[in-house]
């Protein structure tokens, strides 16, 4: 009696059932994800009374000031964003520090290390400048967004550095 060869689907079924459902990424992706998380956004255009309620809520929650003006039938909204999240900014800074420490102990050629440090100076200057501006205007969501972006760029640059081919 000859045994019938199972079809492709049947053959693969046992392999599929052995597949792991979960595969952890090789590196911790939380720092770059966290760096990209925006504060909860407000709607671009909303009825006047919702804008007013949002403005009152924001003033009550933080010292941020929002304002609106409407021209004709086309409302133009000047940005009203969530309050500055200093805890998030601190987490981003810590994530970058951890990654930079890890890079310091890696085996990079001196020329490569020099290029990395030169570029980190550029990024760190941007972070410092944004931080100073935010300190002078603590409620500015625009400045908070720019500072958050600078921290994220630092994390992503350090990630790129970790992937560099070694000569």
């Amino acid at each position, binding site marked *: 009696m000859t045994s019938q060869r199972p079809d492709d689907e049947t053959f693969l079924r046992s392999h599929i059932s052995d597949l792991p459902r*979960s*595969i952890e990424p090789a590196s911790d992706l939380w720092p770059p994800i966290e760096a990209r998380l925006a504060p909860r956004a407000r709607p671009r255009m909303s009825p006047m009374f919702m804008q007013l309620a949002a403005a009152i809520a924001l003033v009550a929650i933080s010292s941020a000031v929002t304002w609106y003006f409407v021209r004709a039938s086309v409302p133009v909204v000047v940005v009203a964003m969530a309050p500055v999240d200093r805890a998030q900014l601190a987490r981003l800074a810590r994530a970058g520090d951890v990654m930079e420490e890890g890079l310091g102990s890696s085996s990079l050629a001196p020329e490569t290390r020099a290029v990395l440090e030169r570029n980190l100076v550029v990024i760190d200057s941007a972070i410092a400048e944004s931080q100073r501006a935010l300190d002078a205007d603590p409620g500015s969501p625009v400045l908070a967004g720019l500072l958050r972006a600078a921290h994220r760029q630092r994390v992503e640059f350090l990630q790129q550095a970790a992937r560099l081919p070694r000569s």
Partner: protein
Amino acid sequence: MEPDALSLEVRRAQAGDADAFAALYRAHVGRIHAVCLRLEGDPAAAEERTQDVFVRAWDRLPGFRHESAFGTWLHRLAVNVVLAHRRTQWRRDLRVTVVEEPELLESPRLSPDPGIGMDLDSAMAKLPPGARAVFVLHDIEGYGHAEIAELTGIAEGTSKAQLFRARRLLRKALDR
């Protein structure tokens, strides 16, 4: 993390609590990364897509109505994120392969890199991108051909042909 605890974390994250969202990330990243890796077939791209998924989830979380499990909602989001990123490439690959190269249904068997054992994940990574997408969505993630057609922008018949092709190529790679 226990389901009830997760539900609480979801509500906290919806309210803007990033630490709660971090907990959700830790609970789900393995599953999401697995589907991204199998669809992309490339670890670097999979990590990028995984990041995109969680960033998109943060943005969309206020709209999550708890009508399904959070994991189910997140998984669906992941499939949409990866497919949106690859739609142009896969649609072209699927059209070219099926219409112009039917003989590839019987192409030479996939061979592993020298010295590396072949398992299903390794074999899937070597499939042509369009065939891999259909196989992962249908045989691993349980989508039907109508759904796959809608998600990828291809015809149902193309989806079925690509699945046949993927299974045949994988069988040849594994059946040694």
